[in-house]
């Protein structure tokens, strides 16, 4: 097996934006799959927690896409890429497990609404999900690219309409087994 670098909130739901914690602490549906299959777990920092705090609002990618947040993510990405590079040098396989729909941690789906801003009121169901990476994941891939490292990605899908834990598990297992290649 190898090393799964996981989004912070998969081990610590206390880091989520308020009203976003799906469970008390450890999000077992993802972590259990990784452990069952013999993957070592390493937790990445939450890009939003230290930057915007525990009282932050729900936000889309455009709201976080500032020069200051990019610099923050670049700092985190440099630290994490150092760990990934050390594991790669040990011959380990690497998988990155993010959070789909997140403005920071999305790996194939992020959130977007160019009009979002000002007083925080918008109708439920705004079509904010869009294909792409969150800002931290984008910066991490850039940093890994500079080091000549490529990684496979998977994502937790609670924020995606029609979320199905069995489908989430099957997708994760597919990535872990490299059936996505």
């Amino acid at each position, binding site marked *: 097996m190898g090393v799964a670098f996981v989004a912070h909130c998969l081990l610590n*739901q206390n*880091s989520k934006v308020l*009203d976003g914690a799906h469970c*008390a602490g450890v999000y077992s549906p993802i*972590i259990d799959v990784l452990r069952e299959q013999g993957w070592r777990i390493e937790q990445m920092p939450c890009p939003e*927690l230290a930057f915007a705090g525990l009282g932050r609002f729900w936000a889309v990618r455009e709201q976080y896409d500032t020069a200051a947040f990019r610099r923050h993510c670049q*700092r985190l990405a440099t630290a994490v890429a150092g760990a990934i590079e050390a594991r790669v040098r040990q011959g380990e396989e690497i998988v990155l497990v993010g959070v789909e729909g997140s403005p920071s941690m999305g790996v194939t789906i992020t959130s977007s609404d160019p009009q979002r801003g000002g007083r925080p009121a918008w109708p439920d169901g705004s079509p904010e999900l869009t294909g792409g990476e969150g800002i931290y994941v984008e910066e991490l891939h850039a940093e890994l690219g500079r080091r000549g490292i490529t990684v496979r990605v998977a994502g937790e899908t609670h924020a995606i309409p029609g979320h199905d834990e069995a489908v989430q598990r099957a997708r994760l297992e597919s990535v872990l087994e490299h059936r996505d290649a």
Partner: protein
Amino acid sequence: MRDERSYRVALVADRYVNPEPGEVDGLAVLAAAGWGVMQLPDAGYPAEVARPLLAEVAEQVEEFSRRGYGFILVGERDGLAEALAHVGVGVPDGIAPASAAELREFLAAQPAPPATAAPQ
């Protein structure tokens, strides 16, 4: 949506997150008890890899501390005290459990986090 967070966070040495066979599975105990986990860098990492990771852990602990979340230390990690001191936070109460039962007992004895007493 109902927020399920516990307001309880454990700083956890890597060996309790990725235990060798026969060692204490701290992650399983903490998950069952509803604690969030902040994993500390593997002791095998060289200092130049571990130091920036510890700095990020400390910065996040600072935010949890300011907001009244409860936190503890499970195991130990060289450099953690210095990283926490840099953000003005002390090393929390801790344990290096020799068994899962010992860890469960320690968790059960923790006081309610201040954040749970404040209006949410």
